[in-house]
């Protein structure tokens, strides 16, 4: 891998060297490295581009890294990855995609990740998106995530896009069975003329299922963002979504929440707040010796931490 690809790997997966455990690294549409373990197998799909990740029941404290890097301008790819997580597992999955575009043509990655999480399994899924390069070609990222949580399973998804992605449409759907729990934490920052759309649909099918969806975003300069969330309660369940956005300069943010309760004991809540940085927050940090610009940076950094 060249230096640019190494930097992208560091940004999206925190990798400075080959990771421990199972991994599959994809660079410019090709496999750049793979390792499997006794408990985690990675198999190339035969019918389309992508991989199946199969994690044996009872696997604990293991991780899978599956980062993707694109450094060739004009490359467009769609990748389909399926995760089969066995019963009673406790694993961490680190995904992420980095695009470096120094050319004039658009580079685009569309990744479809499907999670089949069996009974009582526990998954932490981290997905980071990052763009770099000074070319005029757009960096486009369209991740689709489909989650199926079986009885008593849990998945915590952390999705982060902090820099360099010109356009993104992020679609996440989930079905949550009895006693299962889904937590999604999203952080997005857009600047320039970037546009980001996120669309979450979570259906709680089983009794005592729950979802907690937290989105924090910052829109700077002329960028725009659209946040949509739908939580559907078909059983006795708890659903909470929270969308907090800081708007700066000439940016625009829309939040469209939707709650649907189809059961008398479905308990659903949505909170949304969009606004500029509060003047009192800036003044407080200025009384600690920060300039207005430093105060603004500190507030944004903390908000997206």
């Amino acid at each position, binding site marked *: 891998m060249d230096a640019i690809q190494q930097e992208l790997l560091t940004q999206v997966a925190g990798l400075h060297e080959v990771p421990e455990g199972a991994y599959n690294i994809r660079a410019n549409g090709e496999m750049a490295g793979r390792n499997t373990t006794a408990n985690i197998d990675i198999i190339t799909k035969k019918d389309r581009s992508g991989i199946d990740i199969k994690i044996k029941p009872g696997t604990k404290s293991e991780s899978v890294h599956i980062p993707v890097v694109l450094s060739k301008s004009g490359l467009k790819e769609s990748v389909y990855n399926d995760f089969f997580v066995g019963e009673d597992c406790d694993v961490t999955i680190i995904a992420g995609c980095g695009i470096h575009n120094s050319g004039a043509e658009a580079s685009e990655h569309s990744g479809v990740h499907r999670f089949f999480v069996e009974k009582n399994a526990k998954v932490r899924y981290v997905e980071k998106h990052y763009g770099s390069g000074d070319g005029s070609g757009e960096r486009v990222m369209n991740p689709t995530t489909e989650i199926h949580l079986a009885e008593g399973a849990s998945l915590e998804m952390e999705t982060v896009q902090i820099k360099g992605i010109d356009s993104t449409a992020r679609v996440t759907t989930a079905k949550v069975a009895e006693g299962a729990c889904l937590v999604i934490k999203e952080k997005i920052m857009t600047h320039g003329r970037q546009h980001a759309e996120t669309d979450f649909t979570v259906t709680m099918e089983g009794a005592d299922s729950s979802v907690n969806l937290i989105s*924090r975003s910052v829109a700077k300069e002329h960028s725009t963002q659209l946040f949509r969330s739908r939580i559907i309660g078909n059983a006795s369940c708890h659903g909470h979504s929270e969308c907090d956005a800081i708007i700066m300069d000439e940016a625009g943010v829309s939040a469209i929440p939707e709650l649907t309760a189809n059961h008398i004991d479905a308990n659903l809540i949505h909170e949304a707040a969009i606004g500029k940085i509060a003047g009192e927050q800036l003044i407080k940090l200025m*009384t600690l010796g920060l300039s207005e610009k430093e105060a603004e940076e500190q507030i944004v950094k*903390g908000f997206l931490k």
Partner: protein
Amino acid sequence: MLELKNISFQAEDGGKEIEILRNINLTIEDRFVAVTGPNGSGKSTLAKIVAGILTPTEGQIFLDGVDITDKSITERARMGIGFAFQQPVRFKGITVKDMISLAAGRDTAVSEVCAILSEVGLCARDYVNREVNASLSGGELKRIEIAMIMARKTKVSIFDEPEAGIDLWSFQNLIRVFEKMHEEIKGAILIISHQERILNIADQIVLLADGRIEKMGNREEIMPALLGIGQPCKTLTEKF
């Protein structure tokens, strides 16, 4: 040393200019000074003018002989003026340790943060990584606000009604913090307060009324008048 010379402040209210402060002359040495007076007498405005949050309509402010009247909030903070807000500000994602580090102007070790928090009566380990947000009570936020001033080691520390909005237990604790500050005084402490127990700690008390200094002196001179012992305080009796 902080000097206020002929400070006046006017604000617009419903299209009319209202005089909030008029010809305030005050010299604050390295002592514990309490500013008190009825609601609306201009106490908080005076504190904000010293911190640079408000700009006086007239007059000058000197810190150690340097005219700071035109200095920004940031410049004054860097020159050694600290300000604890009456209503502490909340931040999403910024932890207590982050705030203490920002106040100190450097990355502070957990042990150092714990030591400062313990001084203001917070069980430190429980708070270090807490966000300075709505999950903290008013009393906890007040004490963190004071901890920030302690971490800054400022030349002039201003506290705007530290007792406002806190419960009795937190108030008792607050008194102990200020008593300790008074014992170990370094620089000037300017405290805006209505509370007798805080006024009793002060070396000097300034009584504001209708935007003017009504009385000024040491606590033995001022407290009897404020409490109605001996000569009643005309200003306060008229007000209430």
